[in-house]
């Protein structure tokens, strides 16, 4: 067997073990060590079996994950998210937005979508947003006799926006993988994120306008006077928005690095939670411990994948795949479509973290040959991965919502409700492809 063939075997074996269901981080480490031992074996390897370069490489890779200055932002953004998540902020937000939007068609759905967008922006964690909204907005919509599919679709789709709209953890991880500036990525994601949220919003309002039976007006209870509504908005919507805008603004204006902005954002979130009188000692501990676990989950994937990837390309696997793709003489469009299709398919069984950390690096070195901007590619991937949460059979957000929905809401209802949003995501990807400026204009404008 030639070395590149061994590399393909390595990739195949890896995919097999992932499908069996062993923790991916340790699978990557083991594959990296095992095949690396073969790759770096010296002629007299059998005489001193513990002396092999792969071990030092592994330790060094682990250490470089520990000292990566881009990834520092990951725990900070996670911490900010967990604090916001546990501090009751979402119910205030939804309540006030619902009052503010009451005149619009499908007002509850509009409020739910807006809450999801803002809240998802702050946390960047999908599950929490979907379940919290499932307990809050879904009963409200169902009580108002909203169509089940219409009501569930908007929550699932809205909850996923957090991975695209900056400041998102996914873009930080992509930046670390692709060795791109996270700041430019944030700038690039801004317009496409706003576009997608806007398209969702248009869809929600349009459906409710053309088919009012989907979203009957909620019964006119006593509506509080205008000043009271404004006060509610001022105490719920404004502080969180200011926090997010401050974090994002300081990054985009080049004032602070993402890690610095995330640190200040975490501090702001703690402050906000204190002001809302919802920060107990227990909640703080919970946020700290969850941050530790999720950080370890993401970063151990990096530890594994860096070792795996360096062995994979040392054996010539990367070159083999590249030659194979280049040999197919694709034009850039076809390449882009094929790459996105593969990522879309991977989104069925896998989560975004594994896709970005393990599979996206295979495409990255080829972008140059096809003249594709890695930042543009990253935003396409971020859009694409929205679907990984939404497309059956493994639509995580549908399962989260089902978990907290009343028993008569079936998984099938949710899947059907989500379908239109998948079409919208696809449309957004086409738009982005036709008008790359949507992603590339802002980074140019901010940073030249």
């Amino acid at each position, binding site marked *: 067997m030639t070395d590149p063939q061994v590399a393909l075997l390595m990739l195949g074996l890896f995919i097999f*073990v992932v*499908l*069996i*269901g*062993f*923790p*991916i981080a*340790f699978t990557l*480490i*083991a594959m990296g*060590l*095992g095949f690396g031992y073969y790759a770096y074996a010296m002629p007299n390897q059998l005489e001193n079996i513990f002396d092999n370069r792969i*071990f030092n490489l592994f*330790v060094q890779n*682990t*250490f470089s*994950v*520990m*000292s990566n*200055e881009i990834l520092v932002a990951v*725990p*900070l953004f996670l*911490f900010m998210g967990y604090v916001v*998540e*546990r501090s009751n902020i979402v119910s205030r937000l939804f309540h006030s937005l619902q009052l503010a939007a009451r005149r619009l068609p499908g007002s509850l759905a509009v409020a739910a979508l807006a809450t999801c967008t803002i809240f998802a922006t702050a946390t960047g964690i999908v*599950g929490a947003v*979907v*379940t*919290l909204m*499932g*307990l809050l907005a879904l009963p409200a919509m169902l009580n108002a006799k909203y169509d089940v599919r219409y009501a569930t679709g908007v929550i699932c789709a809205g909850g996923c926006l957090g991975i695209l709209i900056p400041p998102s953890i996914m873009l930080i991880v992509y930046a670390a993988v692709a060795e791109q500036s996270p700041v430019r990525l944030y700038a690039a994601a801004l317009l496409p994120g706003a576009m997608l949220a806007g398209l969702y919003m248009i869809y929600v309002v349009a459906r409710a306008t053309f088919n009012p039976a989907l979203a009957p007006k909620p019964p006119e209870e006593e509506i509080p006077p205008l000043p009271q509504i404004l006060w509610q908005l001022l105490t719920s919507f404004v502080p969180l928005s200011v926090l997010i805008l401050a974090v994002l603004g300081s990054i985009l204006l080049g*004032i*602070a690095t993402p*890690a*610095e902005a995330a*640190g*200040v954002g*975490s*501090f702001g979130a703690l402050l906000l939670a204190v002001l809302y009188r919802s920060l107990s000692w227990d909640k703080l501990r919970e946020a*700290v*411990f*969850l*941050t*530790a*676990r*999720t*950080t*370890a*989950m993401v*970063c*151990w*994937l990096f530890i594994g994948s860096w070792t795996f990837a360096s062995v994979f390309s040392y054996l010539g696997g990367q070159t083999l795949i590249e030659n194979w793709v280049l040999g197919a003489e694709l034009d850039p469009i076809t390449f882009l479509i094929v790459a996105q299709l593969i990522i879309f398919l991977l989104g*069925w069984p896998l*989560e975004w973290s*594994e896709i970005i950390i393990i599979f996206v690096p295979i495409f990255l070195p080829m972008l140059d040959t096809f003249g594709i901007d890695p930042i543009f590619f990253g935003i396409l991937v971020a859009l694409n991965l929205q679907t990984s949460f939404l497309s059956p059979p*493994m639509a995580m957000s549908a399962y*989260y919502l089902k*978990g*907290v929905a009343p*028993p008569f809401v079936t998984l099938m209802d949710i899947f059907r409700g989500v379908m239109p949003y998948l079409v919208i995501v696809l449309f957004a990807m086409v738009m982005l492809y036709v008008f790359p400026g949507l992603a590339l204009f802002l980074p140019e404008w901010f940073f030249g």
Partner: protein
Amino acid sequence: MNRVLLFIDSLSMWMGKAFGWCIVVLTFATCYEVFMRYVLGAPTTWAFVMSIQMYGALLIMAGAYTLSRNGHVRGDMLYRYLPERGKAGIDLVLYIIFLLPGALALIWYGTQFAADSWRFKEVSWSSPARIQIYFFKTLLPLAGALVLLQGFAEICRCIVCLRTGRFPPRLHDVEETESMLIHQHENELERAQEQSGEKAR
């Protein structure tokens, strides 16, 4: 047996949680640096290295804790539908041939890596403050040891499950918001069903 398992669990958990507090230090160190640099115009020399070390310590030392919570991400498309014994069988084999070598390598070669650093009293080159990094590097073998220990606990769990058909219990701990809410919701539904059942009778 169970006592030993729970002891290892609580050791990993305790270490992971203790290092979890690094995030608070990291938050405040970052804010302090931002304040000093952008408000007072006097950036510190130590905050950057400190924040890197806090982040690194957090992620590496929480590895065993995450393992003890079964929190490392799996591609569980098939796995979740397997019977308990099937899960235990797969995990048992793979923990032994996949997890143990990695942890051992981290301990053995990490020790050498850290020992070199101690010998030269190595300092970080990303700041003029000449901050030590030998303590930081010492965390590598330490984390490896924790993962190894936790790996043994997981292996024992698999063996118990293969014999009895059920995984032995884990310690109680914080859950992600989504699983917490879903559990609460399930409990409420059950309670409601029981109540309506009583009424019907």
